[in-house]
């Protein structure tokens, strides 16, 4: 088990806060320091050298935002000298006197992990696949990710945050598959199920293109839909590409039984957060309440001067990148439909349990979900396999086509999000849902 205790809690954050206060020139300035440690342990696919891989990095960034312009300076070390250097680089004017450099001695890294924890995983997946009475070539890479951050502002210093999670990546003869996992319990079966489905659909033909398909999305696939169609669409910077972000509030985006929140505080325990990557307290943010936009995702930059936008949704891919508004853990509130009811109303439609990729075009609001395989629904049950296709539509068009929401929500990884090349893990707790009248392109 990986310790969830931060090694950054020994940083002299009070001294760092005092030093940051020299940069500000009044309340309108935003200043912060960001300290991080990242560890990634990787067990590559069998037969691939080097056999066991460890990456450890640490560093800091200092940021100043003033009058619509921001300056960021990042260093790949945690030391008083690096901090002072970064501070000087973002300062717009030399202060009359510098505070002493803060003591930045993080705790020691834990002992290097052994391969044992991850080594069991490929075996577990292989066993779970065999239990489905199938076998196929598979190259599986397993990783454990650990990230510690400490944000310091000139006035507020929140506690450090620690996230630990796992990721799997499989190479199959018929494509790639990946998943994020908050823990290893049940990971074998969680991976085997979609992999076996890919195997069973490997020779299946894509469906005919049609504009009025019925699609039942499993909890995992619904999580990707939510992320693209609600999460990205309601980020303040995405909204700003087409108008004022505040103008989205009150817009009816879906039916009244569609309520979506972003709540990092209720994410799976190993990735649960109390504060965001700017040190602001996270909240249970209603993105859509009964289908109506209530609170877009915003960070400190977007919420300053706004009576509508609230901070607490800032994320940063690393110290080298400025923060931006992104979702962390989306929740779709459960509805009343039982699993059988969802399928019963979808005769001739598709049961989609995995989505390999989603993309939103912020300029047009169009988005695409790529479905690697699915099952045709006949007489209320999953029947013949269907090959690769896409679900396309506009954000408002697709959310308004949610016809029923399942009553059992399941937590899990929604996947890696790479908006603007900035890769972040995203999580979701969602039930299955049924879409009616959507566009399917084979």
């Amino acid at each position: 088990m990986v310790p969830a205790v931060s090694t950054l809690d020994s940083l002299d954050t009070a001294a760092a806060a005092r030093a940051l206060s020299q940069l500000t020139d009044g309340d309108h300035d935003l200043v912060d320091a960001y300290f991080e440690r990242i560890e990634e342990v990787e067990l590559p696919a069998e037969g691939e050298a080097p056999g066991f891989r460890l990456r450890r990095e640490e560093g800091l960034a200092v940021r100043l935002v003033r009058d619509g312009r921001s300056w960021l300076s990042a260093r790949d070390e945690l030391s008083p000298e690096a901090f002072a250097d970064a501070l000087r680089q973002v300062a717009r004017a030399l202060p009359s006197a510098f505070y002493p450099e803060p003591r930045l001695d993080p705790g020691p890294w834990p002992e290097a992990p052994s391969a044992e924890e991850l080594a069991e995983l490929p075996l577990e997946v292989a066993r779970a696949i065999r239990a489905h009475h199938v076998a196929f070539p598979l190259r599986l890479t397993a990783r454990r990710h650990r990230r510690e951050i400490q944000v310091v502002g000139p006035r507020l210093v929140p506690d450090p945050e620690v996230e630990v999670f796992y990721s799997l990546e499989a190479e199959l003869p018929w494509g790639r598959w990946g998943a994020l996992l908050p823990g290893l319990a049940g990971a074998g079966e969680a991976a085997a199920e979609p992999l076996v489905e890919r195997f069973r659909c490997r020779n299946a033909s894509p469906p005919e293109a049609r504009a009025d398909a019925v699609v039942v999305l499993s909890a995992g696939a619904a999580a990707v839909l939510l992320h693209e169609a609600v999460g990205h669409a309601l980020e303040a910077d995405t909204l700003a590409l087409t108008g004022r972000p505040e103008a989205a509030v009150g817009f009816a985006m879906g039916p009244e039984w569609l309520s979506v929140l972003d709540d990092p505080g209720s994410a799976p325990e190993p990735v649960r957060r109390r504060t965001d990557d700017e040190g602001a307290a996270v909240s249970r943010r209603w993105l859509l309440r009964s289908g109506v936009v209530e609170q877009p995702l915003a960070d400190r930059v977007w919420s300053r001067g706004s009576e509508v936008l609230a901070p607490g949704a800032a994320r940063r891919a690393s110290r080298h990148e400025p923060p931006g508004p992104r979702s962390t853990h989306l929740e779709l509130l459960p509805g009343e439909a039982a699993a059988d009811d969802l399928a019963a109303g979808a005769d001739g439609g598709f049961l989609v349990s995995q989505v390999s990729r989603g993309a939103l075009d912020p300029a047009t609001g169009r988005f695409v979900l790529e479905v690697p395989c699915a099952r045709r629904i006949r007489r209320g049950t999953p029947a013949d396999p269907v090959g690769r296709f896409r679900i396309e539509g506009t954000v408002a068009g697709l959310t308004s086509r949610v016809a029923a929401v399942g009553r059992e929500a399941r937590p899990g990884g929604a996947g890696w999000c790479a908006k603007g090349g900035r890769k972040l893990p995203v999580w979701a707790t969602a039930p299955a849902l049924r879409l009616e009248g959507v566009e399917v392109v084979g």
Partner: protein
Amino acid sequence: MSGALGEVLDALAARGLPVAEVFAKRGRARVVEEGPAGVSVSYLREEGWAARAGDDRRSLFAAGTGPPDPAGPGGSWPEADGEALFLPDREALGIDPDSDPYREPPDLDAPLLGEREALGLVATFGQELRAELPAVRLLGVRLADGASDWELASRPGGIAAAGRSRAAFLRVEAVLAERREAAAVLEIAARSAREFDPRAAARRLADRLAVAARGSSPARDRGELVIAPAAAARLVAGLVPLLVGGRAIELARRLEDRHGRFAAAAVTLIDDGRLPGGVLAAAADGEGLPTAAVVLVEAGAYRRPLVSWREAAEVNPGRGRGRGRTVVRATGCARRPGWRDLPRPGPSHLYLAPDPEISPADLLSGVARGYYLLDADGPVTVDLAEDRLSLPVVGFAIERGQATAPLAGAVLEGGIGSFLRGIDAVARDLGYLPVAGAMVGAPTLRLTGMELRRRERDRGSGR
């Protein structure tokens, strides 16, 4: 070899891992971004290192920030596990570092763009774009200018190498204010940001947007196609699986016609790790082996793939000379973008060789009826199993060498073999694009045998 690298190699040997390599890299960059949240300026300094080590039974990879540390990243080493590790051996590969000396380009010592200079360049680009197309709206601009240096040493093969580099990158995304679906992205790279020409870049993006806004596509059409460097380079990038790696020969052979022809006589493909003025030019690759220009396809004949030293040994023995192919020699082609990454074979400057005797106008003027494909409007898609290649494109319809109507929402589609054997002429205007970590180049080319069709959902744009 610096002392720090030697100390790490000693430490690994002391842990019973005699086969080891240490790589260290430092870099600095200035990044200016303009987007909906305003303008941001970032100063980045990066420093990290990595070691691969093992014996004939097990191996490890460890990487960390800061200078190389004999105690391991974060003060400890992971266990070696799994597979044996093999590293290149200077003597066995016959490498003589003095046989082909490399002269570092003089611009390596030029300073990075200053903050004002970088902001000025971004602002000038915006002004030039608005001058070309007043209705334009910039969605985002990212300008990065960076420099790095690296060092590598390994045992027992006795490899030692070092290098320095400069690279700058500009990405711009824009839409037409009155027609949001008419969007375009421009990505260019150079050794230094001072080489960027804001007016030329703005004009190129404006052309793309204007065509996207006004153009349409035929449902299906054939005819002669003239393809400008920006689109042609994307098509060349799609050929990488046929040109790189141990399986490339097998994949390429499947595409040969019944006469054993891989491509038309106008096609010569080269990868050059030392390309003069190249953004990624270096004396040695990510494993410390000397780089060189390698002819992969010569006048239509497949000569060899780009393979790592280890793959070369597997591809060759005793069977390399068949059907006009040369013996595959190990050439430095391991790409290692950063200290976190393991080296992998890949192109550095992959290009379709130009013909200095032919101008783009010569190719255009000879077209009775066809299309001039100005730029790509999305990534190239290659399906080797189905022998299909497709690229979303924008451009113009042409009659008797003259543009008659803008073309947008179209996809260039056809067999990979048809593409390779359908290129009947190339011009002299070689241009490069940054694609998937490499620089890929092509001149304007003339092509037959491929088809243009309307995109399933013609949105007049696409990214």
